[in-house]
C-alpha cells in the first residue's frame, strides 16, 4: 500500500532506495526494525546482567571482600570501567541516532501532507521497543537491589564500590536512566506531532516524568553513598536515605502516559493499512 501511495518525488528523496534498505536489514526510514531492536536490546540486556551475576559468583568471595587489595581493583574496578564504557557508548549512540527528525517523515509531509501509516507505525513501534528494553534493565535493578540488601547483612559497610554496588549503581540504574531518556528523546524527535499536534510547541509532561525516575535514582545513589560514607546510619535497614529509591521508581508509571498517548494513532494507522484509506495520521492533539 505504501508503494502505491508514495509519490515518486518522495521516493526520490528517500535516503536509500527500498530494495537496498531491505538488503541492509533496515526499514525505509533507515532505522533498525523495531522488533529486531527489541530482541537485540532485550537479549543484550539480559545477557549482560546474567554474565555479571556469574562474575559475582566466581569472584565475590575470593577477591571481593577487601577493597584495598590490587586483585579487587583488577576484577571489580575493571568491571566498573567496562560498565562505564558501555554506558557512554549506549548514551552517545542513542543521542546521535535520534537527534534529528526523520527525513522520510519530513518528505512525506512536504509532498503528501501526511505520513505513510506503516512508516508512522514503525516509529511508534520503535518507541515501544525502547520502553520494553528499559524494562529489561528494570528487572536487573529489582534483582541487584535486593542482592545488595542481602550482601549488607553479611558484611559491615565497605566502600561505595562493592561487588553488589557495581552492577546496581553503576550499570542497571544508569542504563535504566539512559534507556528511559532515549525513549523520551525518540518521541521528541520522531513522534512529537502525536503529543503536541502538528506544528505545536511545548514539552509533554510524560517526556519529563518518565526519565525523571532514573535521574532521581542516580541522584539518590550519590546522596546515599555520601551519607553512608560520612555518617553511621546502619541502625535499621529501612533508613530515610533509602525511601527516595522507592519514590523514584514511581515515576516510571509515566511510561503509561507516554505509550498510551500513541494507542489511538496505532489503531488509526492499522485501519488505514488494512482498509487502504487515506489515513488521518497527522493530528492535532
Amino acid at each position, binding site marked *: 500500500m505504501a508503494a502505491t501511495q508514495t509519490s515518486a518525488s518522495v521516493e526520490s528523496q528517500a535516503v536509500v532506495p527500498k530494495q537496498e534498505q531491505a538488503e541492509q536489514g533496515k526499514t525505509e526510514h533507515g532505522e533498525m526494525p523495531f522488533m529486531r531492536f527489541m530482541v537485540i536490546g532485550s537479549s543484550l540486556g539480559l545477557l549482560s546482567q546474567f554474565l555479571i551475576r556469574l562474575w559475582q559468583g566466581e569472584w565475590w568471595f575470593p577477591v571481593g571482600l577487601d577493597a584495598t587489595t590490587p586483585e579487587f581493583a583488577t576484577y571489580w574496578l575493571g568491571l566498573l570501567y567496562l560498565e562505564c564504557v558501555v554506558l557512554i557508548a549506549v548514551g552517545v549512540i542513542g543521542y546521535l541516532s535520534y537527534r534529528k527528525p526523520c527525513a522520510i517523515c519530513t518528505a512525506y509531509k512536504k509532498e503528501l501532507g501526511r505520513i505513510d501509516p506503516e512508516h508512522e507505525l514503525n516509529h*511508534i513501534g520503535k518507541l515501544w521497543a525502547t520502553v520494553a528494553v528499559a524494562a529489561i534493565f528494570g*528487572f536487573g535493578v529489582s534483582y541487584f537491589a535486593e542482592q545488595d540488601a542481602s550482601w549488607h547483612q553479611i558484611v559491615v559497610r565497605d566502600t561505595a564500590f562493592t561487588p553488589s554496588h557495581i552492577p546496581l549503581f553503576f550499570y542497571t540504574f544508569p542504563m535504566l536512566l539512559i534507556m528511559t531518556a532515549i525513549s523520551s528523546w525518540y518521541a521528541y524527535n520522531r513522534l512529537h506531532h502525536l503529543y503536541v499536534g502538528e506544528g505545536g510547541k511545548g514539552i509533554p509532561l510524560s517526556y519529563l516524568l518518565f526519565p525523571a525516575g532514573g535521574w532521581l535514582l542516580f541522584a539518590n545513589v550519590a546522596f546515599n553513598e555520601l551519607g553512608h560514607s560520612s555518617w553511621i546510619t546502619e541502625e535499621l535497614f529501612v533508613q530515610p536515605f533509602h525511601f527516595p529509591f522507592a519514590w523514584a521508581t514511581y515515576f516510571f508509571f509515566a511510561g503509561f502516559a507516554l505509550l498510551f498517548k500513541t494507542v489511538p494513532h496505532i489503531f488509526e494507522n492499522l485501519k488505514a*493499512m488494512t482498509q487502504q484509506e487515506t489515513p488521518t495520521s497527522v493530528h492535532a*492533539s
Partner: protein
Amino acid sequence: MKAEELTALGQHRMAKAFDVMLLCALVGFFTVIPHVSRMLYMGDWDFWVDWKDKLWWPIVGPASALLVTTVGHYLAWYYLRLPLGATFAAVFVLIGAWISRIFSFYGLEYYPLNFVWPATTIPMALALDLILFWSRSYLVTSFVGGFLWGFIFYPINWLMLMPFLQPITLFGKTFTIADLMGYYFVRPQTPEYLRRIDEGTLQAFLGQRIWISVLMAGVTCTIVYWVGIGIGKALGVMPLNKVIRQT
C-alpha cells in the same frame, strides 16, 4: 471505532508485535517498581522469618505491598479495562523476590530458603481485582477489597509461617524456632535490640492479639488503596494530555 473493528485490527501482525512489547514492558516495570517499593518499606519484615511477628509484619507488610499493586490495578482498569493489574503486579513482584532469594540470599550468602521466604500477596490481589470487576467501583473496592487485603494477609501467610512458630526451650528460655534461626544467622545490619522482634507487652493477650493487628491492617489498607490510586492518577494518567508550553 466500534469494538468489533478494534478486535479485528488487534489481529493484525503489527498489533500483535505491540502486544509483545507492551507485555515485556509491563513485566519489567511491574517487577522493579513494586519490588523496590516492597524491599524498602517491608524490608526486613519480608526478608527474615524471625521478623514475621504479630504486631508490625501484619500491618506494615500488606500496606507496603498494596501501595504499588494498587497502581497497577488502577492503570490496568483505566487504560485496558482489564481486572488483572493487581494480580499481575503481585505475581511478578513475587517472581522477582524469589529470584533474589534463590540467587542472592541462598546462592551467594547461603541463608537457607526457609529462613528468607517472601510473603505472598497473590490471593489478596485476586480478591482486589475480582471485587473491582464485580462492583465497577473504586469506592466499594477500597472498602471491601482493600480491607480484605490487610485482613487476610496474615492468615494466608500463616500457612507458611506456622511451622516456625513452634515453641522450643533452650538454656532455660522459651522462644520460637524462627527466633532460634535468627540467633544462629547473625546479621550485621540487624542490631541486638531488634533480635527479638515479637515483643512482650501484647503476649498477654495470647492468641487474640493477632486479630487486633489484622483489623488495623484492614483499616490501614483501605486508606493505602487511595494513596495508590492517587499515585496512579498523578503519574500514569495526568501526564497523558499535559504539555508544558512556553509562555
